[in-house]
């Protein structure tokens, strides 16, 4: 089981530096580990705990709360079919049934080749194109049975590799570096601004009293 690679440890440290308290980086670091390994491995959680000075149980305790953090292996493509109200009204349930037949797995299952895990998802906020689904958090709308099968074929053949990265990759755009303003500078500026505000208030009151 892999820990975070040195390159990812460097990224993790930079992420931690963005927050007033290290623990705030917990979810971003879980996403980072999931990007590295495709799921959140016990060793990665232990490593995250070390970086944040928490216990592995604390990391698992938080990770297990969130639907997107997978503490068990999942397929390279996580297919999440929405069946919530807007999709329900537009054939979402039928789409999910088709997905089960087409992939040969039931909800929660992973295909034998490890390519696809199927989930029935809650609303993914793409109701203008209901019924819709996500593959690795990338949106596909107005999906019918034929479009679903085509999508699966394209994913299997790697034709969508550019738009749908492997499961776990949340953002391919990185923040350019850490914080740019020293905390002391912010504190000094705010103190000065507050003082100016107080002066203006006092002047206005004096004006009003005259």
């Amino acid at each position: 089981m892999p820990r975070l690679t040195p390159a990812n440890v460097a990224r993790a440290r930079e992420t931690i530096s963005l927050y007033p308290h290290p623990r705030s980086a917990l979810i971003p670091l879980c996403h980072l580990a999931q990007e590295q390994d495709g799921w959140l491995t016990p060793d990665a959680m232990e490593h995250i705990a070390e970086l944040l000075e928490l216990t592995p149980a604390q990391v698992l305790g938080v990770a297990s709360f969130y639907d997107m953090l997978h503490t068990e292996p999942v397929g390279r493509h996580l297919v999440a079919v929405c069946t919530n109200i807007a999709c329900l009204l537009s054939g979402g349930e039928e789409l999910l049934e088709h997905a089960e037949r087409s992939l040969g797995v039931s909800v929660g299952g992973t295909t034998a080749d490890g390519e696809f895990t199927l989930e029935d998802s809650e609303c993914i906020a793409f109701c203008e194109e209901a019924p819709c689904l996500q593959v690795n958090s990338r949106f596909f709308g107005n999906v019918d049975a034929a479009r679903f099968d085509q999508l699966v074929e394209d994913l299997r053949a790697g034709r969508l590799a550019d738009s749908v990265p492997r499961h776990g990759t949340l953002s391919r755009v990185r923040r350019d570096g850490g914080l740019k303003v020293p905390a002391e500078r912010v504190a000094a500026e705010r103190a000065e601004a507050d003082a100016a505000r107080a002066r203006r208030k006092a002047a206005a009151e004096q004006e009003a009293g005259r």
Partner: protein
Amino acid sequence: MTVTSVPRIVTARFEHPDSYELDRYLATGGYTALRRALSMNPEDVAAEVDRASLLGRGGAGFPAGRKWSMLRPSPVRYLVINGDESEPATFKDHQLIERDPHQIIEGTLITAYAIGATQAFIYVRGEFALGIERMTAALNEAYRYGAVGPDIFGSGFSIDVVIHPGAGAYICGDETGLLESLEGKRGFPRIKPPYYPAVYGLYHEPTVVNNVETMSNVPWIILNGGAAFAALGEGASTGTRLFALSGHVRRPGAYEVEMAKTTFRDLVEHPDLGGGVRNGRKVKAFIPGGASSPWFGPDKLDLALSQEGVQANGSMLGSGSVVIMDDTTCMVRAAWRIVRFFQRESCGQCTPCREGSGWLEKIMRRIEAGAGREEDLDLLLDVCDNISPELVWPPQQTTICPLGPSIPPPIYSSLRMFRDEFLVHIKEGGCPYG
């Protein structure tokens, strides 16, 4: 018709395919509001937004200006933007995040200046991968342009902004659940009092939590004045609002319309908006303000999209989501699906919500499956009453956060409006809609 002739405040750039890039943003007046705000006194910026009477666009509809004024004095103050849009059938923030991220960043910076925030965080729902990429790219551009970071535009005001991804939990849309999540914890909403993050927020420091659409309105208000914003709409419902219309309409989508001057019927039927009910069918019922809101029948279609008007009629505009259900819809199934959502998303802290949602889901499922009993209908209302006593509107609450009292509305709405349909399920031993 004048319905579509009002200024577009938050969606003005949507017509451009590159609406999310800095060049387009600057070419369409971007960051001029920030420059103007930085030339004003912070309290005058806040007063301008207060004059607009901008109601929060997240769901609770709390006036943004008042929220800002409640901040407890402290050397450390945080601004947190809620982009965790997860209310079923609500997809307006999703569009604002993907299609105009700079507008959100600019609104955030103006707000940070007005309240003297020492750092700002934009919490984006984890499932919005493209949105997170666009927001991150936009923030990088904004830093390079000098709109974020030290000494913004030479004004002497400095601030850092961090884009923070969520990881899939509806409960984090609640502002105190969101703060817990941002602190690296489970998204458990906090026990009240203290009621407001303005008193006790992120890391216990005074914090303002504002919605993404609320922030998107701020640059326009600074450029055009709070009075111009307040001139739109009526009463407390000022300005425009982005409504997410879905379900059985020809043209589902997010439409920005003037508050209070537009009706649900306009939204559903206007050819440039919903374009009417699909397949020429009729509206059987609709959900006026997100899955948590009590349903309306077609008799309420002529009601204006006004926060106080909808409230007076026993429901809410809530998250700005309108779901149209036509006469082919099984109301038991629709209500069951919403209840199942709440059951899955209950965080489990409070017994009425955790246990009640589970029982309600089971009872609704068995009625839909044809195994219901007539006494189940009273049982449903009894369990609902334990979560939200007396089933009144606005709801009473036995739980820490509003998720609990959000569960009864789909049940009592469908049951009061379509009791016959429940009875048919029970007597015929199955769903008449197949």
